[in-house]
């Protein structure tokens, strides 16, 4: 990685790296190179598997009791389930409930990855655009295929604005097509940039603490505040990703 001016000034401490972008570096733990594809087990892959594993563990142990009067953990799991189910039903109606498992998986995976990134010295899987772009692309392709399966070629009527006067329709159609294809771009960048920005801010303040010596308690107070905000942002970004998926699904299922 090219040494920027900032990194050159501050990376002289023994062991600790104050460069705020160092935390996003992907480390190759077990290189598995098949020649045409690189299946290496990286720290990103480890934390993604860990997020999935922890979510599955939580749901299995919470529902293993399955009593009519729920225990605490079962209430949490049921609360999560009901929350996402209501979200899907309110956005897409009863027809959208068929796709509830996909949205539930998306929501819990992103929530797990975001929250796992709040642990010190861990790695935030969703802070890399490679991960969020694939999540958003999968949503985009899924929703488009569902739209074509449901409405056939008539799905293209999504782009033809019926409520506008006749002469404006071609212009609006072009704008509608462009905004439809921009959806996965904004969908992915929103999640990735939020995660990356939050953690980069935390590391920059950490650099201030190291540089200020005794007065470093002031940046520490700021770090506490920003960490609290980061927890909120982690949950909200997972929720926003899921609910935007529901909104796009609604557009595909019932065209307007």
């Amino acid at each position, binding site marked *: 990685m090219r040494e*920027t*001016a900032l990194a050159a000034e501050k990376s002289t401490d023994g062991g600790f790296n104050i460069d705020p972008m160092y935390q996003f570096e992907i480390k190759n733990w077990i290189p598995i190179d098949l020649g045409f594809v690189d299946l290496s087990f990286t720290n990103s892959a480890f934390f993604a598997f860990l997020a999935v594993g922890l979510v599955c563990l939580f749901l299995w142990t919470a529902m293993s009791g399955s009593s009519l009067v729920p225990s605490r953990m079962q209430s949490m799991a049921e609360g999560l389930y009901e929350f996402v189910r209501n979200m899907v039903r309110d956005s897409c109606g009863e027809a959208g409930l068929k796709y509830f498992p996909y949205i539930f998986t998306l929501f819990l995976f992103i929530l797990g990855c975001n929250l796992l990134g709040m642990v010190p010295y861990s790695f935030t899987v969703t802070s890399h655009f490679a991960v969020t772009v694939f999540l958003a692309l999968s949503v985009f392709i899924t929703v488009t295929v569902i739209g074509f399966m449901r409405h056939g070629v008539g799905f293209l009527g999504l782009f033809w604005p019926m409520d506008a006067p006749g002469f404006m329709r071609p212009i609006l159609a072009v704008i509608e097509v462009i905004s439809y294809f921009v959806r996965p771009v*904004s969908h992915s960048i929103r999640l990735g940039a939020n995660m990356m*920005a939050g953690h980069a801010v935390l590391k920059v303040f950490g650099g201030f603490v190291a540089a200020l010596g005794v007065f470093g308690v002031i940046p520490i107070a700021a770090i506490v505040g920003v960490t609290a905000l980061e927890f909120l942002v982690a949950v*909200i970004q997972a929720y926003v990703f899921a609910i935007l998926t529901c909104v796009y699904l609604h557009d595909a299922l019932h065209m307007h």
Partner: protein
Amino acid sequence: MEGDIGNMGQYIGAGLACIGMGGAGIGVGHVAGNFLSGALRNPAAAQEQTATLFIGIAFAEALGIFSFLVALLLLFAV
């Protein structure tokens, strides 16, 4: 001398990119303020619109995050 001017350009660009976050702040405040005034008029209907509130805040905030991203990219990834 050449490297220094390049770095100066990075810093100036990053500083200029941060101006965009002012717009995001105004936008998020606008959305939240409108929600608040509507909720105070009609508290019963406010509960079901919290989802719309969060979506609106996320959309407005995203643009500010994009500009912060540009600043970070200029500082550390160019």
